[in-house]
């Protein structure tokens, strides 16, 4: 038994710096893709909610295509497709682009769901007291939608952080790939798994905690 602990300690001591390096790449991917996905979702929202069908239709088509196909294939499309067009972006850029595309589509639907869940009567009431459409949206609808959006938004960011693991499929040494290599070399799969899971749980619980704290603060303001 003491042998086992000694061996595991040696393994972990050697593995730790590599896992930290992999974790940093996972953090960088999450930090780069989260704001891009949030922004891309907003950019998709305007055409998605447009009254004109010919503007709405392509937005719906794109969003549904992104939501109903695997992220891995989307990343492959970016990674293996762009070189044919003469672009040679790095694995990092391809990963971030693929993740932002899919999560942007999911987020656009989240935004829309929150806006549409605000009761129609709110628009009518604002209209009745003489507010224009812009003011109504800014001062009446948006604050209410914001309250409803924060929960799902936090969940989406957690999913995004986990989805960064897919860049290991295009050869990046992120946390997942580092763990995979370590398992292949040491055959101590359970121990390495615990170490890798520890880092991912650190990230996802931190994100979940942040989301809840923001939700709490915003709830206090309105």
């Amino acid at each position, binding site marked *: 038994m003491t042998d086992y602990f000694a061996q595991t300690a040696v393994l972990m001591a050697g593995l730790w710096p590599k896992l930290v390096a992999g974790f940093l790449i996972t953090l960088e991917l999450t930090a780069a893709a989260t704001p891009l996905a949030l922004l891309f979702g907003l950019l998709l929202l305007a055409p998605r909610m447009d009254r004109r069908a010919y503007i709405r239709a392509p937005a719906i088509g794109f969003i549904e295509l992104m939501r109903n196909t*695997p992220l891995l*294939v989307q990343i492959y499309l970016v990674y*293996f497709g762009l070189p*044919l067009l003469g672009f040679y972006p790095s694995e990092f850029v391809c990963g971030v682009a693929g993740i932002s595309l899919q999560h942007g589509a999911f987020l656009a639907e989240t935004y829309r769901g929150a806006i549409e869940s605000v009761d129609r009567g709110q628009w009518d009431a604002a209209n009745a007291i003489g507010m224009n459409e812009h003011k109504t949206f800014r001062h009446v609808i948006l604050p209410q939608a914001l309250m409803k959006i924060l929960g799902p938004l936090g969940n989406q960011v957690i999913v995004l952080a*986990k*989805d*960064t693991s*897919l860049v290991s499929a295009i050869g990046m040494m992120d946390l997942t790939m580092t763990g995979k290599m370590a*398992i292949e070399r040491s055959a101590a799969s359970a121990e390495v798994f615990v170490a890798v899971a520890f880092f991912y*749980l650190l990230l996802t619980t931190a994100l979940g905690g942040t989301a809840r704290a923001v939700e709490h603060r915003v709830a206090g303001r309105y």
Partner: protein
Amino acid sequence: MLTVLISNFPYLMRGAVVTLCLAAVVVMFGTLLGTGLGILATSSSRTVRGMITVYIFVLRGVPVLVVMFLGYYAFPALGLRLNAYVAVGLAQIVYVGAFTAEIVRSAIMSVHPGQTAAAKSLGMRRGVILHQVVLPQAAKIAVPPLLNNALIAIKQTSYASVVGAWELTYAAREVVERTLASFQIFIGVMAIYFVICYPLSLLARWYEKRLTIAS
């Protein structure tokens, strides 16, 4: 332009069949496992509740790919030579089970406690209350998130290709390596996934809308 896609279409369709089989097994057993654990998670035993809470917390906070790598390498390390599909399938079932358990647990918790109290006052036993009163109401709430969960599980089967199991995405990569026609093939494969997933997506949305109107 499209000749590459057309000539390789039969090969990709064989991959799609494997994807469908893998997805069917994962969704079925993952949902069964998760439903069982979700019901147990509302039991009165603190140990059982604690164990299931840890299971849900760990698996929901970790990427499925990591669990799949664990499944793929852990069994041989234990001396069990499993075929790649079994290893990947088991890993995905365990993963999907955690998400399902959380959905079922929160659906049961969202049934008003007055329902259980009323059933108790009528003299119904615990098992009967669960079976006749709580679960029928919880099932209604759980269906849309379970359908979305199944949708995610189907898309996740594509990650099996990273671990080395041959299915639709693996087949696509093979064809792209041979033909270099990455755009046509990957867009074609996205279309195949879309055809599989979109009906389920619509069903989930339709059911959700029906529930909101009903309430």
